């Protein structure tokens, strides 16, 4: 790697730079101000998030990445209103979030589909809660199921679907509610590598066709760079914003860009942010076992 000459991750082609300036002009969909979260534990107060502030523009796809235990999940749960911060506030479309609601969609790592409802009924859930008639909810649900390519399975129950299909239903279900922001908490973490790859492309495809702002939590570097407009890198203990990186890889993205210099440069930079040089593996002792020579001639 080190022998390879990489451009700086700050270098943006004119098209990409123009894209970012357009993005910055868009209204703010999600604004986070001075978010702090402390937990009382028997061993004292633990600060999970410390003064986190950032904003996400409309129709932006932002990834939040950080080492494990940096409070990514706590952050997204606060953003979605599932937990209350110790201090600070979250504004969605200009209004403060006080609890979970249809404005903030959420896709969980564990699918969380309702097992007693068919695919179609799962997607109808949000519209029905909003008081729409079965007819309207059903015709809307059909469109969303079509969008994620599961029309053939609309009457199947969740236990009959594979992991990737379940997560597509979960995405359709969240989108059917037409939230202002869609939070995704490591949605592809439980999928195998091949499926995850497909799902990432799927997500970009959906995002291209739907007017939606996405905040995507991940611990996978490639996933973050591949999907995002911007990447928010969190520090661990306490969780602080380390840097917000603008990804210089042009859109539309494809898997062939994984080896673009701009992609690799961004990936390398974020890797260094997360694992500062000289600090790697400091606290993971490696045990060497004395084994006899393998029986290979």
């Amino acid at each position, binding site marked *: 790697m080190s022998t390879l000459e990489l451009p700086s991750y700050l270098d943006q082609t004119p098209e990409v730079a123009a894209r970012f300036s357009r993005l910055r002009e868009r209204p703010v969909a999600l604004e986070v101000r001075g978010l702090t979260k402390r937990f009382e534990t028997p061993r004292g107060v633990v600060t999970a998030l410390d003064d986190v502030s950032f904003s996400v523009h409309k129709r932006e796809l932002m990834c939040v990445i950080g080492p494990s235990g940096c409070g990514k999940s706590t952050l997204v749960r606060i953003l*979605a209103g599932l937990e209350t911060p110790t201090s600070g506030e979250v504004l969605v479309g200009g209004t403060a979030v006080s609890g979970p609601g249809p404005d903030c969609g959420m896709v969980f790592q564990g699918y969380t589909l309702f097992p007693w409802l068919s695919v179609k009924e799962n997607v109808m859930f949000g519209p029905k809660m909003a008081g729409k008639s079965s007819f309207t909810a059903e015709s809307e649900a059909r469109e969303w199921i079509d969008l994620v390519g599961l029309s053939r399975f609309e009457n199947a129950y969740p236990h009959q679907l594979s992991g990737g299909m379940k997560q597509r239903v979960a995405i359709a279900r969240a989108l059917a509610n037409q939230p202002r922001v869609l939070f995704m908490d490591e949605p592809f973490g439980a999928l195998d590598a091949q499926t995850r790859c497909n799902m990432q492309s799927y997500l970009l495809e959906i995002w291209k066709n739907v007017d939606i702002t996405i905040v995507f939590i991940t611990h996978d570097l490639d996933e973050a760079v591949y999907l995002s407009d911007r990447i928010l890198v969190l520090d661990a203990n306490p969780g602080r914003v380390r840097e917000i990186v603008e990804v210089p890889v042009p859109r539309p993205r494809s898997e062939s860009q994984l080896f673009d210099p701009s992609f690799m440069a961004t990936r390398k930079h974020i890797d260094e942010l997360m694992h500062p040089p000289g600090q790697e593996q400091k606290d993971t002792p490696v045990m060497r076992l004395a084994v006899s020579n393998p029986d290979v001639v």
Partner: protein
Amino acid sequence: MPRPGILRDWFLIRRDLPQSRALLLTAVSFLMPLALWCVVSYVPWIWHPDVRIEISAEREGVTTVFTAGDHVSKGFFPEFVRAVRDENAAVTKARSEGTAVTGARRKNQKILRQIAPVAVGNGWIDYRDTQNDAALYQTWRDLATGAKVSSEPRLTEENLGIIRANWAALSALSPEFVFRKLPDEPLLKLVPQGRPANPVYLPEPDDVLRTGFRDFTASAPEGELTMLQRYGASLRVIFLGFFWACLIGIPLGILCGVFDFFSKLIEPFVDFFRYMPAPTFSTLLVAVLLAGEAPKVALVFIGTVFQMVLVISKTTRLLDPSLLEAAQTLGAKPRQLLKSVVIPGILPNLYNDLRILLGWAWTWLVIAELIGVKSGLTEFIETQGRFRNFDRVFPVIILIGVTGFVMDQVLSWLHGLLFPWSGKSSALSRSIAAAFTWPFRTGARAIRNRLAAVEAARIAATREPSP
């Protein structure tokens, strides 16, 4: 060394057997105890410490009277037989010496009735007709002339001889039964007959089957219930008690599981109360609700409802909380959460809880039926058990067991049918469910389509004026 075939095929650690073998073992698990019962009952040299009397005799000057069906110990029976033979010998001797006593008509009537168990055993007369002297008189005649041969029990040559001798004396006076025309001199007594038997508390399977069939098909004596009516009464007590428990227990349990408020308010007391055994309230319940069905239902209720609240609240708490969070992010309000997530989410587990609790309710039944005025199947068990008629008790006990077991199996099978989404139902039960619900589903779909058409027309109508 490779494991032998039988170990490889049948004994696998934590591995399911193929279905055919599993089914075979299930059958064996029922046949095994049954076979054991048969072996102990029908193989004479295994146990059989008693003799069951088939033909009995009253002895002179002995107050203990044995009747057919009674058990006496193996050691005592020969003594009994010898005593009766001695009495017969004395009668014959007196007759030949011409010193026979007279005025023995009453005793002779009793001797005539000795034949009754034989007549009943062969099905010649009904078991309630054992004092029908006219019919018994015919039986003596038929046996003596050889018109009828007893197979159940088989009569000994000795007894056949006695029958012929007695009939000679009887027929000389009258071909029909007339009390005044009975011989005045004593007749010979039938010598007791019996066969090896187990103690009275272990009746033979065929005996149990026969008495069970007889009891359940018989019409009841005046003022009493038939067995089926008793069975109905027992089921009524169970189901009413369980129904009331469900009516109170399910909503309370769900509330406790959902709201910590109710959990803290109700559960501590419920937890305390369930340790007080339900039967201890029996006299209180009778005092409050009076004798009759009500205190029995209340006992089943008390025995079930407290467990139910705790079990259901636990089941409710076990619902994956992330489903609730997901529903909230989809805009569900608290009331909608309860109705659209909590209740459908816990239903399959709730159903299984109720299945187990219904099993509990059965255990309270026996106690419930003993309080106040005894009733139902338990009254029958109590009464017959007191008379040591265990061949009549066993069918009832088995009936209760079979009812509980079959009900549980049916309910467990219905689980897959009611909750196809839990992924536990077999293809067979799913297809039966599909066939069964087809008319309802078709109807519902027709209504839905109708409503959809109405709404589509309405939407079209509102759109038309705009362009």
